[in-house]
């Protein structure tokens, strides 16, 4: 197959933003720091609901209420995460293209996002007496697993290339 995303990745790297970040001593680390801070925020917002779904924390609180309260923090964290992530990406897009860690991260990021905003959101908002606890546990487990792979693979991008 001759079709490839490489030209697009090369174009990203050659944008003004990509150049600016790559040529600056401070920009990359500063953007990385925001990426990490948002990670902690997303981690908290995701975990508090997943651990509750797994029945491991705050069992006296309704899942739906916890999920509703955590949601804006999750979305806020994701906005910072995606923005900073895109900026980091443009500065080293070609390296990312060849990085297995980056590909793994993206492969898990898409299902993690889709799962979080569809299945997990529905199950968390549902009446607990109607959705069995087993479903909640399964959803919590899948969510934790998907996001952990995204996080670990993300860290690994820095070790590749």
């Amino acid at each position, binding site marked *: 197959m001759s079709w490839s995303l490489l030209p697009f990745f090369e174009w990203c790297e050659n944008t003004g933003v990509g150049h600016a970040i790559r040529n600056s001593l401070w920009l990359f680390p500063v953007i990385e720091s925001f990426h990490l801070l948002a990670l*902690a925020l*997303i981690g908290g917002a995701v975990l*508090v609901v997943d651990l509750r779904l797994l029945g491991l*924390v705050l069992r006296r609180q309704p899942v739906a209420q916890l999920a509703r309260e955590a949601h804006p923090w999750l979305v806020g964290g994701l906005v910072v995460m995606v923005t900073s992530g895109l900026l980091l990406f443009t500065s080293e897009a070609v390296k990312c293209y060849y990085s297995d860690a980056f590909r793994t991260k993206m492969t898990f990021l898409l299902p993690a996002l889709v799962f979080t905003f569809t299945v997990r959101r529905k199950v968390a908002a549902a009446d607990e007496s109607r959705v069995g606890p087993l479903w909640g546990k399964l959803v919590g487990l899948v969510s934790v697993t998907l996001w952990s792979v995204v*996080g670990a693979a993300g860290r690994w991008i820095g070790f590749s290339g």
Partner: protein
Amino acid sequence: MSLLGICQWLEKTPWSIALHESIWVYPLVESVHVLTLCLFLGTAVMLDLRLLGVILRRVPVSEAAGQLFRWMAAGFVLMVISGSLLFYAIPVRTYLNIFFRIKVVMLVLAGLNAWIFHRTVYRRVAEWDLDPVTPRAARVAGGLSLVLWAAIVVAGRMIAYNWFDQPGVH
């Protein structure tokens, strides 16, 4: 023996060299350090936000603190173990690194902040457990904790960069 002397001695131990030069273990320890950030800091942030009265307002503070504490503690232990290993792999350079020193100072301050909170306003938590808006001292503790831990994360990330490294130190 000075602290630097200890670091120089540590650096020559076979396990330090092995960890430093390992292809898989060092990145693995780094990944554990980053992922447990979610477990420790993620839950700590949720608790701090409760203290600030912006999240989980209907959950009693003592319940949020009591329930989240185990996970925070587990995350903290993993954080300290993985962090110590990362230090052990590159002791001299890390010891001399300005961001590492800033991080250590901030860690002490964050510990002090948590200790003071538990010794003072949290002792009377029964009086304000269900208040959506917590007492001023609790809000200050929550806010300080957020600021200090954010600074710790940023300083921690910066340790990897060598802008201020002294020549000859790798």
